[in-house]
């Protein structure tokens, strides 16, 4: 095929072709095939030569010669338009994700309302203190079966006694969603309580101590004021913004509460989470309110539910839940100094521990 045959062979070969058409056909097609193969080869070669030349070109220089800058910019924009869009969306998503995760949106609502219902969330530090305290108590009372909770509570607030028999009042939001509730006296003794009544509208909850180890209080030194208190009345509260009770002191700064709420007073006592549910007393030793919340975006604006409404709640309670709930009518504090009053009142104030 490659012309490698000698002249003689070639002649014989040609003759054979003439006589045998089938063979001839085959040879023709074979030649055609080889031709195609070779053309393929040369095209392949051409392409690689061209690519080599192309590599040596300075495309950008050529482009700047023949294509106006405006077109180049437009082309670049079209090319990276998608990338820009993706980058922008990712940026926006990231912003929103950050805002969301740092509680911007929920806090915005809170900021808008401004009302901060005070429930103390027990941090790890607090829990450690609680644990060691529990242990100390157990040591002291070794021998007696301590029915106190083994775990450390999740939330804490304040409550105060309504009766010597162990009815305790606190805020509804303190015990909201609780699996179990305990109260702890200032001596550190814990008692299990049952939530006997909840009034979300007035944010009041009535608890009853169901613990056998509880023995009745000696006496209740305060009474509950039925009427409203005046602007400027000097008031104080005892509560548990931390593990040890704290005295807060101030005056009634408004006859209405948050956003004009008529069931609350505004007081200027600085309160914190944990104070919720604590008693608000006037200088004569009357309970005039139940601490309930504070305003976030204003200094020194705290709120307490008027005692009038506490009494209303107790009134509204179904009889079966308040069988032994008769309120004290004898005030033992009226002539006493502040410090003496506190001495008597604090025995009736409890930390409310929510699990």
């Amino acid at each position, binding site marked *: 095929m490659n012309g490698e045959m000698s002249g003689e062979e070639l002649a014989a070969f040609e003759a054979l072709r003439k006589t045998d058409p089938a063979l001839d056909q085959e040879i023709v097609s074979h030649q055609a095939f080889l031709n195609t193969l070779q053309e393929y*080869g040369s095209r392949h070669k051409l392409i690689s030569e*061209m690519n080599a030349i192309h590599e040596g*070109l300075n495309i950008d220089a050529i482009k700047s010669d*023949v294509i106006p800058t405006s077109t180049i910019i437009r082309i670049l924009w079209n090319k990276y338009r998608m990338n820009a869009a993706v980058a922008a969306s990712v940026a926006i998503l990231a912003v929103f994700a950050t805002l969301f995760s740092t509680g911007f949106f929920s806090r915005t609502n809170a900021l808008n309302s401004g009302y901060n219902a005070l429930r103390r969330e027990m941090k790890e530090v607090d829990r450690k203190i609680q644990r060691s305290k529990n242990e100390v108590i157990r040591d002291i009372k070794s021998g007696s079966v301590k029915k106190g909770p083994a775990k450390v509570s999740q939330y804490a607030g304040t409550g105060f006694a309504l009766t010597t028999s162990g009815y305790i009042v606190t805020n509804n939001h303190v015990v909201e969603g609780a699996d179990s509730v305990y109260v702890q006296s200032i001596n550190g003794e814990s008692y299990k309580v049952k939530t006997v009544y909840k009034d979300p509208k007035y944010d009041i909850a009535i608890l009853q101590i169901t613990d056998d180890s509880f023995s009745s209080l000696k006496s209740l030194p305060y009474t509950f004021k039925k009427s409203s208190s005046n602007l400027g009345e000097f008031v104080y509260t005892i509560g548990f913004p931390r593990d040890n009770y704290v005295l807060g002191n101030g005056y009634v700064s408004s006859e209405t509460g948050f956003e004009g709420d008529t069931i609350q007073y505004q007081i200027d006592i600085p309160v914190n989470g944990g104070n919720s549910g604590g008693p608000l007393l006037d200088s004569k030793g009357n309970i005039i309110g139940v601490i309930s919340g504070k305003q976030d975006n204003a200094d020194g604006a705290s709120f307490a539910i008027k005692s009038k409404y506490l009494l209303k709640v107790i009134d509204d309670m179904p009889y079966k839940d308040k069988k032994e709930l008769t309120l004290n009518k004898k005030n033992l504090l009226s002539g006493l100094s502040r410090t003496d009053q506190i001495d008597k009142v604090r025995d009736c104030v409890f930390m409310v521990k929510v699990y």
Partner: protein
Amino acid sequence: MSRDIKRSEPTDSEVILGILNGSTDTLERLYKAYFPMILQMVVMNNGTDDDAKDIFQESVIVLYDKVKSGNFELNSKLKTFIYSVCRRLWLKRLKQLSRNSGSIKDFEDVLPVEPDLERHEEKDRQFRQMEESLNKLGEPCKTIIEDFYINNRSMQEICAKFGYTNADNAKNQKYKCLQRLKKMFFQTF
């Protein structure tokens, strides 16, 4: 600087001669002379740099085929011929990619080139076929075939390269490979 001026646009007859002689120098001059205008046409009509390269190289192949097949009559400038071919190819490509409304901004005159392109397409198909079949052959057949038929190496060289004991052995091997290639080529053709 002066060298560039000297080596600028080759005359049409120079190009044709160069193609027939297989001169790489001509190819280079031709490439450098006419690629910019194609780059301009393609990029200004929704194309990328790579599109321009593909289109241009295809048109050069068309030109080469036409010249080598012997029926090349140039009625106008070579430049116009190349431009017209590229234009047609690009229009077709745009329609495929539906990237265009169907019209192209022109920067040069245009010739009718349909028949050439039809032939080109036919050949293109054949070559794709060939490429595919060769690739399917695998080694060592592919290299043997390429060396013998395309690179025109002698049997001796191939024998040495692949380590066959003698030329006849190599020839046998080559024959077998060729048969296989043929079979594959015509099978899918």
